[in-house]
């Protein structure tokens, strides 16, 4: 073989793939600019919710549970969206509701992912009886409808914010476990995991350094969707009276408290419901876009 050709082959092998752009900030900005309109809308919605939740005390004209006017006051200059059944300002409650409901839903989802994710990874790596035991427990939990199970548990342990978070997180972690175990297993059989095992690495390294980064995209997507479900569940529980307790402002209970107004053709009680719906739609748009981007689900033509 002539040297020239050999050199040629080598260099061709070397330059085959161009160096990727390493500036992740610029990459993200570029991705963001290329995102479809729906995703941009979703991001805008989520950002404004977060903003409102963070700066609730600054943005609101009155205190969270302060009675400032007569009951069921109409929309007007003093109370932009009127007042509720006890005479509290609707707009103020709506804004504080974002803070309470969002915060609790976020913490709950985070906890659900921490528990479900760790156990799922563990099951996918260890397999055998660990997997069997965990999976069967999860099956039992999943056999009972979530809302009814949550109602029962909240009645037993009492409904305060802390119990609410723990109970819903545990119930929701079952679904995270299932997903995490399934996608984790696909990665756990790869050669690089075997390499880590052969090197003598411990479980934490294999779980969090070898496998977790490779299953992150589906988990992030699931996080978005789970967040929506948790959010809806909390709202539903609050509507039923066992969720976030008064006088804390919360969208679910706000719908319930003011429901009578609907009979008079007033749409005020639907506003908290609309707020929930809008956020759910926003999160779904973003999640769809992310899924599309990371999973290679691209249009082929």
């Amino acid at each position, binding site marked *: *073989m*002539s040297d*020239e*050709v*050999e050199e*040629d*082959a*080598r260099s061709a*092998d*070397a330059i*085959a*793939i161009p*160096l*990727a752009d*390493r500036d992740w900030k610029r990459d993200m900005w570029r991705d963001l600019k290329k995102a479809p309109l729906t995703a941009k809308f979703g991001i805008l919605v989520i950002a404004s919710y977060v903003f409102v939740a963070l700066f609730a005390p600054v943005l609101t004209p009155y205190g969270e549970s302060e009675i400032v006017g007569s009951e069921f006051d109409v929309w007007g200059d003093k109370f932009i969206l009127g007042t509720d059944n006890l005479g509290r300002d609707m707009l103020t409650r709506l804004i504080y509701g974002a803070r309470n409901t969002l915060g609790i839903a976020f913490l709950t989802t985070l906890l659900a992912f921490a528990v479900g994710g760790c156990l799922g990874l563990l099951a996918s790596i260890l397999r055998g009886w660990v997997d069997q035991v965990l999976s069967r427990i999860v099956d039992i939990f999943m056999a009972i409808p979530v809302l009814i199970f949550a109602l029962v548990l909240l009645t037993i342990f009492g409904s305060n914010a802390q119990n609410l978070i723990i109970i819903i997180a545990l119930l929701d972690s079952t679904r995270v476990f299932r997903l995490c175990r399934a996608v984790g297993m696909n990665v756990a059989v*790869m*050669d*690089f995991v*075997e*390499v880590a*095992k*052969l*090197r*003598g*690495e411990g479980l934490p390294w294999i779980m969090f*350094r*070898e496998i977790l*980064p*490779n299953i*992150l995209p589906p988990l992030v997507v699931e996080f978005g969707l789970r967040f929506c479900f948790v959010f809806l569940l909390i709202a539903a529980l609050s509507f039923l009276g066992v969720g976030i307790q008064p006088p804390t402002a919360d969208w679910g209970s706000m719908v319930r408290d003011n429901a009578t107004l609907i009979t008079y053709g007033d749409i005020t009680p639907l506003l908290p419901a609309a707020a929930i719906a809008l956020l759910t739609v926003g999160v779904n748009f973003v999640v769809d876009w992310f899924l599309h981007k990371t999973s290679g689900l691209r249009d*082929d*033509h």
Partner: protein
Amino acid sequence: MTTKPKKQAKDSEVLLSIRNLHIEGQSDEEWHPIVKGVDFDLHRGEVLGLIGESGAGKSTIGLAAMGFARPGCKITQGDIMFDGVNLFNATENDKRSLRGVRISYVAQSAAASFNPAHRLIEQYSEAPVQHGVMDEKEAHAEAITLFEKLQLPDPHTIGFRYPHQVSGGQLQRAMTAMAMACKPDLIIFDEPTTALDVTTQIEVLAAIKDIVHEFNTAAIYITHDLAVVAQMADKIIVLRYGEVVEEADTRKMLSKPEKAYTKSLWAVRSLQKKEQPSDDILLEMRNIDASYGGGVKVLKNVSIKVPKQRTVAVVGESGSGKSTAARAITGLLPPMKGEVIFKGETLSAALKDRKADDLRKLQMIYQMPDTALNPRMRIRDIIGRPVQFYMGLSGKKRDERVSELLNMIEMEPNQYVDRFPGELSGGQKQRVCIARALAAEPELIICDEVTSALDQLVAEEILKLLQHLQDELELSYMFITHDLATVRAIADEIVVMLQGEVVEQGLKTEILTPPHHEYTDLLLSSVPEMDPDWLEGLLKERAKKKPSIQLAGN
């Protein structure tokens, strides 16, 4: 191989004529040229061999001959004249009426191309019945004749099996039968034997060659294996980067290649190493029995010795237990019986009982560098982790060692440390795998088919690197492979395995020179040679003496 009755007619009529073909592919939302202006003619009954490395555009051209572009690719210009029809601008309906009837396609992996939920014969009949060439009954009868011609066992009943019930070689032949169903004018074979063992490959090659001659079918035979194309093709086109490097008749191409690139491809198989005997045993497998989940024994009383600073090649077909032997040594699959002795000390059977230092001395390199490197880790961390884990180096010292290792595998550290595996070529990934193994400063490296996923030129570079490292670092290799060219290139000793047993073990020249063990002989003689008459000669010879060894492939 009798005379070819219609062969005279072949030169006169051009069946397929491709002119100035350009194809582009999409990556990162941009279009890049894959095929850049390829021309060729294919006459009736002629077999054209397309060869080149991966990424040369072989398969893309093969599919374009059917007027088809893969998702993410598009044919941007050129003429594809098939018997008077220009497939470049033909309507989808026109193309569909040709495909399966007059042009058909045999894919690389028959196992992945058959629908597992339907019987073979149903899938066979689909195209002819769909196109109205014959009804189902005729199709079934025809299928049986073809199965017979392709020498499938039990031709009358095999069609009623499901794809998973027949072996890989049989499936590939069934797929050839399927492509033949409508007696097409042109068949495109896309690496039909690449996934098969050498002994099975022969049967498929012989079957394809026979049937193509019998029906005077033109064929495009795509492969990266020169010796295979030498058996099959009348004419060869060498491709590189989507362009034709050289085109000539097979015999001329083999004997007098003109371009430097072609010559380099031809020269690859010439790498050889002189064996050196040694009695200084580093690792010994002693009477090992192993099985998965306590079922059938995959290893039966296997004993293998690996001398210090030598290379032992373990050869055998898929399913012969080569990789299982490696798993038994590393402790991933604790053997049921027997022991692994490393430097005079017995290693614990199970991985979790072994000392970190024992793990360090025994490293592995895998067949598929794509799955052996964590795609979400940078090269710095992939190589740095074992340095940190075993040597306790961190921070700057660790980075220095990583640079040193990258230099050792002939990759520029500054350019590569921050990359992800996805940003490297196949050969570079395999180099990184080698560096990762070296990072542990091992004494024995088990190489499991390390070159079989690579192109020939790249594979040779890797082999040279491994040999160089062996001399420099006094490494021992256990080299698992099914490729005998690789064995010739690097081995000192050879172990031949068959169905979980060691058939023969000894120095390279001892094993490679006759008299052989019967199976070794079969294995050795099945490796295609660059001589276009090799296949016919071999088949004649085999017909004379009936082989007494029944292979898994049949």
